[in-house]
């Protein structure tokens, strides 16, 4: 019994350390070990989430740089993909807090903030479909429908591209899909006032707040 617990802890530590060391290969290996050792998949995913939260906090403290967060997120996603193979579809569904379609609006090429938000959302255990930058209104709606998303997150950095955030919401209304998806907006020029004006469900002033807003909206 002691041996099993010890082994289980070691595998969970390996998972955690792989993320903290930004090591995708080690994360995959540890995930395979976890599956082989019949470790509770939810516990394994919790261990990974804890690790990536630590990475997020280090980034927030400005101890590490963006590439490290990307590599940590990649390691986590690779491990989660392996662990999920051992789970029933019902359990996989339970392990995902929600599915988010995210992108920067048409005409706007600035996506650093959006990328940071994406990684924080992944770290929080959300499934994120990143549409990239310069995303057309139709593509937000079409992709959200395709993946049966819970929430659409829309970013922009320029005052002249902000109206596209409103257009996504208008398009959802036009297609009678507004109630199907929560909509969160963010980006340099975006304010709570703008979010209220265009009828968005939420607004995050930065990546940290965005995650909280998304989580609280999905919990409703």
């Amino acid at each position: 019994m002691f041996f099993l617990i010890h082994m289980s802890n070691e595998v969970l530590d390996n998972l955690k350390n792989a993320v903290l060391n930004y090591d995708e290969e080690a994360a995959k290996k540890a995930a395979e070990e976890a599956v082989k050792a019949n470790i509770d998949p939810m516990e394994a995913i919790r261990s990974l989430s804890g690790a990536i939260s630590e990475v997020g906090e280090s980034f927030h403290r400005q101890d590490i740089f963006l590439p490290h967060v990307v590599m940590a997120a990649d390691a986590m996603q690779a491990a989660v993909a392996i662990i999920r193979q051992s789970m029933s579809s019902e359990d996989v569904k339970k392990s995902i807090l929600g599915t988010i379609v995210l992108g920067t609006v048409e005409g706007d090429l600035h996506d650093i903030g959006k990328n940071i938000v994406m990684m924080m959302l992944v770290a929080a255990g959300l499934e994120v479909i990143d549409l990239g930058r310069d995303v057309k209104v139709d593509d937000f709606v079409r992709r959200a429908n395709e993946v049966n998303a819970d929430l659409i997150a829309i970013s922009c950095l320029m005052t002249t591209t902000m109206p596209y955030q409103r257009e996504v919401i208008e398009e959802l209304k036009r297609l009678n899909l507004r109630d199907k998806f929560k909509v969160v907006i963010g980006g340099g020029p975006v304010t709570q006032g703008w979010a209220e004006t265009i009828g968005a469900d939420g607004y995050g002033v930065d990546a940290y707040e965005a995650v909280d807003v998304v989580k609280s909206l999905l919990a409703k």
Partner: protein
Amino acid sequence: MEEKEWNMALFHKVQALVKRHGITAPDPNDRSKIVCKDNAMIDSAWQAGIDFLVEQGVYCYDTRRVIEFTEDEVKSTIRGIPETLVMGEGKDAVTAKNKHMDGDNDPVLICGGFHSPYREDIAHLAPKAFMMIPGVDYMQGFTLKVIDGREIHGTAMAAYAARKKVRYMREGARKAGRPGMAICHYPISLEAAPMIATLDPRNGLRPCDGAMMTPLPNIVVETGLITAAIVFNDYGLSFAQNGNGHGEQDSFAGSREGYIVTGIAKSIAGWLIYRSNITNMSPNIVHEVFNRHTNMIRVHGLRWPDIMRRGTQYNERYLLYFAQKAINCAFTGSAIEPSGGGRLEGTTPYEIEFMCECAEAARGLKVEDGIELISNIKKMADEECPAPVTRPGGMGHRVSRTGWDGSLPTLRDVYDLVKMEPSEAYKQEMDKARRLVKAAGLDIN
């Protein structure tokens, strides 16, 4: 190649170059290391920047292709950066050049401001007020969110708004009695059509004008601006300015040393791809690298903790920030660009006048003396007018926190654009600021 792949390849290449060239970044809090006195390190950093472009290239985001260069191409193109450029025309023309970093007595090149959003009702008044300031050499444009009462939305509206904005600028120059003053177009949209639509010798950009043309922080360019750059080059546009907006931590450089490599590569890339011959630069060693190896006109000066953050209230501390900025640019040989940082109608002509005066007084200062002066101003500001609230820090662009939407005071609160004078209360703040600047050791009368 997908962009994510590019970003991570950039990170790994930069880290390899840091190792290969033995680049070290000084402690930002060590005042003795604000300026790097090690020419071997400066040369290594320069070579690392070139190696990046030769070995990694520049990524074009919409074609998803990497633009490749040979070392000869990079170096010969850099040699093509003109030693001087003429901005504007007739009696209002100025000859701009890269000033040396230490004790160069030549005049400071001064942009009069904007680079921030404006509302249409004062778009016809503001340019004149700024362009009448004698020390101002050229003006950057502003952005508009609304034109003719309609929200700017879509390419056609953006093209119309860009044309009209430049027209306001040209008209402002005429009213200021300086019709030949150069204008730098600040994009309303980064698409090719709205950029190109500004070209119009009568009311738009003339060949003696310029435009902001900036590669993205991860050394990425895009076809819209490349097209605009080709057309601008064909038109003979005199200059382009690389805004180089980025943060150290949220770039893909991966370390402070890596940020030196990307800082150099990005500034070269701006010239290679967009023909940007005026460049905002950071970190500090990038200034020294370009000063030593190119004729590129550098903007903004050095950064270290004694440089105060721009405040949000119109008070003496806010004015002292502008004094520091002017002194910094004057003694580092940099051009001054008092950009609004995204704040709605933020900077007033009063700060610009003050900045011009401080820059003139600090012209020719040695680096050590300039650093000392700025430190003195910071000490006095902290003692006599400490910052009441620290602005929120963190990653990424925080334009909303700088009040683009008018949530902060605007120039209308303290400056009358019709009478072209500040409020009495703001004049009193200026008296205090001037007293402190003089006490710190700058000879302004």
